[in-house]
């Protein structure tokens, strides 16, 4: 049997090229890993459970695109039909080729172009129940599956709003060529197989055979030659696609596979970047999900700085400063990204490069002994702008009879996170050392803070040997331990998840449970991992205050859609930011808890309110 024709060469060359390229890329990424990460990797790939978990995720994310499905079913189907459909075509094609050829090893092109070589006729009736007929059916079905995704992709480029997407990403030269090839591959396959089947009156399934018969009937000219032309085109576009792939967005496919393995081996992004981050950059599929997730885009009309653009400029080795700095680091895009790229880390790497040159001088800080206590309370800088929060907290401490110490009553030494958000880790560390000494000296077992920003940095950077709680967790614990008794005020409230507490600290349940006890908590449209940023983020630099206000107003509109009595949050910065523009009362959860203690002895006349002047 003849198993070769000249037209298979472009495909074969392309295949050799892409395989070599992927192997080389993998080798470079692995070689460039820091030594510790290499150890993790080699230990990981020898642990069966980690390998299994990686394979499972590769299947679910690389082929089925589960996360994308959850986010956007139409987009999920589109990606799945391409990836999973193509994968199955390859697998089934290989199996089918075995039917005609007993050899264990075939040339890789053979299954791909099988229908060129095999086009025998199934004449007898019972033959539709035979193995070849089964494969013909399956292969046609899979081809149709892929083509359906192709149609969707085409519609998406023309009408991206049908997909619920406001933005679709831009392309460079290699992307365009690769994309054109990709769009041509399957139509060419369809035409080549159909014409062949039509000409030989056999070899096709329900799709290619019928279409082939029709095409041969209606097109004038030598059908065999036309078929041959399409086989060449099919091979050429495949080959060209493979050759373009390493330079185009499609390199994200093999990159993501390795990234999944890295992640399952426990490799994390590093503060100054590593080949893990390089790999993340190459794994971005430019799906554009991050653009739609970003409030700066949909609330403030800034659409040049989102993750996909950050990553693109990183790939081009140059990140303009405004892309690095214009971002609230709210984590919404990171949460939405179907590839799971640690976008905040990528941006912070760049900020560190920009911010590291500048020095600080904190020699003015002295270290008087703060005294001893069981619980240290650190209100945080921001809480000093919303004094009702520390007032409520102190009231509660007293009610519960806690031996506490309000460590920053007379002014906070900043926790360091604002400096870190600007990429000034070294300076931040000086402040961290100061606060650490202060906290250690108290010999307390528990550190409670009112500020999620502080909470995050306490947990991630302080290495304190004591428990650290945000006040929403702490207050819930006081209630559960029976230290304070609460009575619901039955006000209709909505809860706003602060970025650093929710996405940043993974605390969603405690504040809700607490609010459930003292008020009538109503749901909001975007909450938990999908919660909006208040707009006050300290990470956002280089934009005007008006931008922040636009984000705030948009968030308020969404949060207050149900017209609640009170907007509750658990962060002094959110409170301060919302209060500026909200017509509805904005309060911190601690204030509400304090109000809900019916027996309280430390009653302050009326409810606790910030002594704020409202300028309208």
């Amino acid at each position, binding site marked *: 049997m003849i198993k070769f024709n000249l037209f298979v060469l472009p495909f074969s060359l392309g295949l050799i090229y892409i395989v070599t390229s992927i192997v080389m890329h993998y080798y470079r990424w692995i070689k460039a890993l820091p030594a510790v990460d290499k150890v993790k990797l080699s230990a990981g790939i020898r642990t069966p459970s980690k390998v299994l978990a990686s394979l499972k995720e590769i299947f679910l994310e690389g082929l089925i695109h589960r996360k994308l499905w959850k986010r956007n079913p139409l987009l999920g189907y589109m990606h799945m039909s391409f990836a999973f459909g193509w994968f199955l075509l390859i697998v089934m094609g290989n199996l089918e080729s075995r039917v005609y050829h007993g050899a264990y090893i075939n040339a890789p092109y053979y299954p791909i172009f099988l229908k060129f070589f095999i086009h025998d006729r199934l004449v007898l009736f019972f033959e539709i129940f035979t193995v070849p007929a089964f494969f013909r059916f399956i292969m046609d079905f899979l081809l149709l599956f892929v083509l359906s995704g192709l149609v969707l992709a085409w519609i998406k480029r023309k009408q991206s709003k049908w997909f619920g997407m406001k933005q679709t990403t831009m392309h460079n030269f290699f992307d365009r060529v690769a994309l054109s090839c990709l769009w041509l591959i399957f139509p060419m396959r369809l035409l080549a197989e159909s014409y062949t089947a039509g000409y030989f009156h056999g070899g096709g399934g329900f799709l290619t055979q019928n279409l082939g018969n029709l095409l041969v009937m209606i097109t004038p000219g030598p059908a065999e030659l036309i078929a041959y032309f399409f086989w060449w085109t099919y091979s050429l576009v495949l080959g060209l696609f493979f050759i373009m792939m390493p330079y185009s967005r499609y390199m994200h496919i093999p990159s993501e596979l390795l990234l999944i393995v890295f992640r399952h081996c426990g490799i994390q992004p590093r503060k100054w970047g590593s080949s893990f981050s390089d790999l993340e950059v190459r794994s971005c599929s430019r799906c554009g999900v991050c653009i739609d997730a970003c409030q700066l885009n949909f609330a403030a009309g800034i659409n040049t700085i989102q993750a996909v653009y950050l990553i693109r400029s990183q790939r081009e080795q140059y990140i303009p400063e405004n892309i690095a700095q214009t971002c609230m680091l709210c984590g919404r895009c990171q949460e939405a990204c179907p590839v799971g790229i640690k976008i905040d880390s990528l941006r912070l790497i760049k900020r560190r490069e920009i911010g590291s*040159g*500048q*020095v*600080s*001088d*904190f020699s*003015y*800080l*002295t270290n008087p002994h703060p005294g001893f206590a069981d619980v240290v309370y650190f209100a945080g*800088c*921001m809480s*000093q*702008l919303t004094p009702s929060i520390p007032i409520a907290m102190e009231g509660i401490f007293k009610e519960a009879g806690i031996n506490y110490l309000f460590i920053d009553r*007379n*002014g*906070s*030494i*900043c926790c360091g996170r*604002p*400096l870190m958000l*600007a990429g*000034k880790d070294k*300076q931040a560390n000086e*402040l961290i050392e100061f606060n650490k000494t202060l906290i250690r000296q108290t010999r307390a077992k528990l550190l409670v803070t009112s500020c999620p920003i502080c909470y995050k940095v306490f947990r991630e950077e302080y290495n304190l040997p004591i428990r650290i709680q945000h006040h929403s967790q702490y207050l819930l614990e006081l209630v559960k331990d029976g230290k304070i008794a609460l009575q619901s005020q039955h006000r209709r409230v909505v809860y706003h998840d602060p970025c650093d507490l929710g996405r940043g600290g993974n605390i969603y349940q405690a504040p809700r449970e607490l609010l459930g006890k003292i008020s009538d908590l109503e749901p909001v449209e975007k909450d938990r991992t999908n919660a909006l940023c208040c707009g*006050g983020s*300290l990470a956002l*630099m*280089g*934009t*005007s*205050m*008006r931008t922040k206000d636009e984000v705030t107003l948009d968030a308020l509109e969404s949060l207050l859609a149900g017209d609640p009595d009170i907007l509750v949050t658990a962060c002094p*910065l959110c409170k*301060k*930011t919302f209060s500026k523009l909200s017509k509805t009362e904005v309060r911190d959860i601690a204030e509400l808890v304090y109000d809900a203690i019916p027996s309280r002895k430390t009653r302050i006349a009326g409810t606790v309110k910030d002594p704020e002047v409202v*300028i309208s």
Partner: protein
Amino acid sequence: MIDFGYTLTRDRQLDYDRGDFRYLKLVKSLEPSMDLCIGCGSCTATCSAAGFTNFNIRRLHTVIRRGDPESIKAELKKCMFCGKCQLVCPRGVNLRNLILAMNRAIEILG
């Protein structure tokens, strides 16, 4: 020196012709909202660093405006970058970015 019971204060006169306005130009281009300042001093009143030392953020951007940037170089290093100042500014001056811009100006212009 004979003690007359009083001292002379340093000459505080500003000579705009001799001022160094390169800093102002650069800082303003990096953070245009600097122009909105009315000198109310709220930023200084709330400043975290000012709680521990005599650091005056309003003074820093004011002297830049007056073309006398020399004195800010050592002072600016005291800022903790906490962002309180910008939250209380009634004029919406983006103070944190202004501080970054002043830092940048010192880096560039020496």
